[in-house]
């Protein structure tokens, strides 16, 4: 019996065409201090980073703060940018670590942060039928929601998702499988199983 993992791992994501060469040129330009390179990088990646931020924070202002923090960090990085091979992954990893650092600071400060349920704030469905999907996605734990967004919406492979969230390929694929299973349960039950 052979177990075919490949179709499950790679078939479900939406492959996105990324112009890594242009992104690398822009990063090199930014490293040399060209401000217009930062503007172009923002135009190319801000929307994607914002979706990732929304998946993590679930709040629009927090997601915007995260995106801003990423670009501010990026502008201060310097010559290290010359060594970046996959700029999109690099930016998303930066966003992930920024979020983790922010959360760690909140925890060490012993502030209890209530997760605000902001229905309809972070994702607006295009069709009536997908209202439940957005709400169901909101019910998932943060790490599962992040994998779903990065894989399905942003088109990263599980290997890339694993790298940029600091887990193995199999952990990323496992989280995705759990997330889809949970979404199936939520959407399959009456009223989508949602509160």
């Amino acid at each position, binding site marked *: 019996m052979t177990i075919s993992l490949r179709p499950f791992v790679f078939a479900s994501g939406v492959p996105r065409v990324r112009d890594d060469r242009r992104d690398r040129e822009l990063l090199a330009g930014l490293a040399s201090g060209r401000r217009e390179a*930062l503007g172009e990088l923002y135009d190319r990646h801000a929307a994607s980073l914002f979706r990732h931020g929304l998946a993590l924070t679930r709040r629009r202002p927090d997601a915007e703060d995260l995106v801003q923090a990423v*670009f*501010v960090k990026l502008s201060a990085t310097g010559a290290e940018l010359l060594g970046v091979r996959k700029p999109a992954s690099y930016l998303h990893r930066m966003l992930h670590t920024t979020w983790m650092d922010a959360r760690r600071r909140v925890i060490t400060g012993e502030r209890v942060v209530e997760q605000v349920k902001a229905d309809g704030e972070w*994702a607006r469905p*295009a069709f009536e039928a997908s209202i439940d*999907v957005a709400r169901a996605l909101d019910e998932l734990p943060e790490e599962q929601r992040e994998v779903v967004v990065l894989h399905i919406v942003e088109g990263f492979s599980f290997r890339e998702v694993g790298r940029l969230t600091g887990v193995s390929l199999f952990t990323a694929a496992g989280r995705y499988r759990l997330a889809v299973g949970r979404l199936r349960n939520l*959407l399959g039950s009456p009223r989508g199983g949602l509160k």
Partner: protein
Amino acid sequence: MNSTEVERRLRQITWPEPSSELRARVLAESTVRPQLIAWSDRLWFSRTWRLSMTALVIAVFTIRAWPGSPAAASSDPSPQALADAQAIEETGRDIGLPGAVIASLARRALGQSRLRGMTFNASAIQFFDQEETRRD
């Protein structure tokens, strides 16, 4: 509902865009200063240079490991070769050979041991045999 249907519905979600003010905020907050990148940084972060260095290191190790290569011959003697040279030195001293001859024999033993397949200097053994016969 199967997984494919869930994925299809997930792709139908229309995500909001970041606000238009965010771009201006990002550009205002970021401190981009014109700076000259040193050639050493360009070299260090160059993919070509890193690949070349990796290839070079692999090539050096391969050449050193290759049995007949000059680099392999010039490597440090093995513990066995050192023990052999020491034994020759002690034996030479015992039978009263001049120091220069002992040193020469030890050097030859070390040189020969570097070539694989040759365990001991045959001429040295012959020399010792002749010495033994002459003394008897």
